[in-house]
């Protein structure tokens, strides 16, 4: 079939002083009408740069230095700016990752959609409004008459992304570029948006260039796949071929790192509990002040569960389900309104502030953001040994232990004398694990501990956690939004929605025979379910 867009020998330079000279080089691929091409890669692979170059939206100091991009018979890279502008939004549409910041906060949704027509001199203002209404209906937004007059802040994340899609579709483009459009969304919303993009693509016969880091998404929608690393294409081909029979080592490694749906048989739960949570409740009240009504959000609504000694309990749920609040109230970073948090029979929730400080040792946390979880002004040694020293461990002993622990988590003991900024995200997460271990806790809570990492790093950190858990017989409460990750590590899974625990059971039970509708929906929404991960 004829390609609508073909890229030949594309190279984009980075400003001097960057990690490497080229953002991308030697890029060649074709985009076929009616097909979805997924460009996959980890952060820094140059996948977004390629898309921005096509649109003529590269950042200031970044330039195309070589190559052609033939679109409808012309090399768009060689066109004068005015011509490229005419193509944008007309023949090539684009949507972005953050639907909140991608919309003008001071403009009504309807005006922002109609503006696309105005940019290309189509229709009268009233026709534009009609068309905008049609588009709003087409992308499945509720109450079009209301939405058209709404401001972005009045819409949910998924609705904003639908509005963005409406704008990109306005002129019925031949090519739609989607730059990680579902990354910021919850899994069920992501599934809806993916469905929408797919159905629109079929209806309009567009070619879609879909940029993502998630092989699950690739499996869900891709016809063709390009795998990128360090600014170069390492593998390309049909989706089935790349996913089932990857040729390049990097692709193989990436796919192997994707948590699979093959459910491991979790260990038998031990009879002895380290933690028992009884009827935990937490309600957030937004303070109204004199003229505002108070609003109540039930973050935790009567949650009870236990964690056995040496067990890994996963808590999964979408954002706003209250899963993190549960974790944080167990360590009392959040004060629960009521309920008991029994650690070996002692109620953490009943401790005074002073008692709590010495009881802190017993539960430790591994945090989500590797860049925010270490104090940039303190050496690693201090980060790891500060807790034990506060608890009364002699300084020399705590320091020696810190160096040992660094080796335990796969780093060099000399890392202790360096500052956080000298480490990569994955390394920092290892340091975070060492910090938690340093306190010899009864229970470790890992709150989205691998969510911020690239998939290959994620796999390594998960491997480390699994290894440590088995060797040291750790009890773990593993909080995540990612069901695949949960399946890999956990013995039992608890599913949360709207502050309630809707289902709890062994991994096999929850994944293979879910009892609740919500769990079933959640599982169905996981991208690439049918593909089932790499063999």
């Amino acid at each position: 079939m004829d390609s609508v867009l073909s890229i030949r020998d594309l190279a984009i330079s980075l400003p001097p002083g960057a990690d490497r000279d080229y953002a991308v080089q030697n890029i060649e691929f074709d985009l076929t009408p009616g097909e979805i091409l997924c460009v996959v890669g980890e952060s820094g692979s140059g996948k977004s740069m390629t898309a921005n170059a096509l649109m003529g939206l590269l950042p200031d100091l970044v330039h195309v230095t070589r190559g052609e991009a033939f679109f409808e018979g012309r090399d768009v890279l060689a066109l004068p700016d005015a011509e490229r502008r005419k193509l944008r939004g007309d023949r090539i549409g684009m949507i972005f990752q953050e639907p909140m910041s991608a919309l003008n906060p001071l403009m009504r949704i309807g005006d922002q959609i109609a503006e696309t027509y105005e940019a290309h001199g189509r229709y009268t203002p009233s026709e534009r409004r009609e068309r905008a209404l049609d588009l709003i209906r087409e992308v499945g937004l509720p109450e079009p008459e209301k939405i058209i007059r709404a401001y972005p802040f009045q819409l949910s994340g998924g609705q904003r992304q639908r509005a963005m899609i409406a704008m990109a579709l306005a002129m019925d483009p031949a090519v739609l570029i989607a730059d990680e459009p579902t990354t910021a969304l919850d899994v069920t919303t992501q599934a809806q948006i993916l469905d929408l993009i797919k159905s629109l693509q079929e209806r309009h016969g567009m070619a879609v260039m879909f940029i993502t880091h998630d092989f699950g998404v690739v499996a869900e929608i891709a016809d063709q796949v390009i795998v990128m690393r360090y600014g170069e294409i390492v593998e390309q081909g049909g989706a089935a071929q790349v996913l089932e029979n990857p040729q390049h080592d990097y692709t193989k490694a990436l796919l192997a790192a994707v948590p699979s749906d093959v459910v491991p048989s979790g260990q038998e739960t031990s009879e002895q509990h380290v933690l028992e949570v009884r009827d935990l409740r937490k309600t957030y009240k937004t303070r109204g002040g004199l003229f505002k009504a108070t609003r109540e959000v039930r973050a935790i609504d009567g949650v009870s569960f236990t964690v056995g000694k040496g067990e890994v309990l996963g808590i999964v749920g979408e954002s706003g389900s209250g899963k993190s609040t549960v974790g944080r109230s167990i360590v009392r970073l959040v004060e629960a309104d009521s309920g008991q948090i029994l650690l070996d029979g002692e109620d953490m929730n009943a401790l005074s502030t002073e008692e709590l400080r010495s009881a802190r040792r017993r539960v430790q946390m591994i945090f989500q953001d590797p860049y925010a979880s270490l104090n940039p002004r303190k050496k690693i040694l201090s980060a790891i040994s500060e807790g034990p020293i506060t608890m009364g461990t002699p300084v020399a002993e705590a320091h020696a232990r810190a160096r040992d622990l660094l080796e335990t988590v796969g780093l060099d003991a000399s890392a202790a004398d360096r500052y956080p900024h000298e480490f990569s995200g994955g390394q920092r997460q290892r340091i975070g694990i060492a910090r938690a271990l340093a306190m010899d806790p009864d229970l470790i809570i890992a709150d989205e501990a691998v969510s911020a990492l690239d998939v290959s790093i994620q796999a390594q950190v998960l491997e480390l956690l699994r290894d440590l858990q088995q060797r040291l017989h750790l009890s773990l409460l593993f909080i995540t939004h990612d069901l695949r990750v949960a399946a890999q590590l956990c013995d039992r899974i608890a599913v949360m929605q709207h502050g309630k625990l809707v289902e709890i059971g062994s991994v096999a039970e929850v994944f293979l025979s879910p009892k609740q509708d919500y769990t079933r929906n959640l599982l169905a929404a996981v991208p690439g379910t049918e593909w089932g991960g790499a063999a």
Partner: protein
Amino acid sequence: MKDFFKRFSRNRGALIGLFILVVVILVAVFAPLLYPDSPWKMVQRPFLAPFSVDGFPLGTDTLGRDVAAGLAHGARVSLIVGLVSTLVALLIGVPLGALAGFYGGLVDDGAMRFTEFFQTIPNFALAIVLVAIMEPTLPTITLAIAIVSWPPVARLVRAEVLSLRRREFVDAARLAGLSNMRILFGHILPNAMSPIIVMASLMVATAILLESSLSFLGLGDPNIMSWGYMIGAARTVIRNAWWLSFIPGVAILMTVLALNLIGEGLNDALNPRLARKGR
């Protein structure tokens, strides 16, 4: 540290500012050696134009006092008032903002209402009233300037603490069993230092402007020679001897400009991410 100097020195304006400031500081420090006599002493015939008589490069004022001597001694007042009042303002603003941001809730409400209140009052007018009521002396002028200067510090520190407080390393410190005060002073405030330092350098500049304005209006310490006083005293003869007002004004302008340039350089050097966005 090396990075800091490298980034700072990349800003040419900041280097110029640093140079000017060093000159002003040297003049202030060595004023008693350069001009051992009191700057109030009448040494020559009044209204000598600059460069007209040897030994009085900047001429003499309405009463025959050496303008150069006044300038040198005035530098001391400007720098001392600027520095000390900024320190006092920091001593008020930093703890207040830190506690407001750290504890939130009612503490925050109370502290911020208080701060807003002081910010609403036109600050120069308040400074005038305070100095007028307390009688103008070096300490009262310094205190008055500090009292009208602290609110922005409190707001800045509060905002910084508020955002740092939510970082996970603060949670980690809490889980390590640290007390609130150790978390605030050991983990949070050290990370808020860069913007505070930048603001402080700009505050010294503003304080120097305020001090000169007050002494221009006659609210300076009557025993101490200052640049603002020199301009104020020469105001009535502006038609005949404009340079008497011009020269001390240039001194103020240069010093304040130098501090602002240094502030920008510090901003570039200490907040590299922000700086890159700005240029």
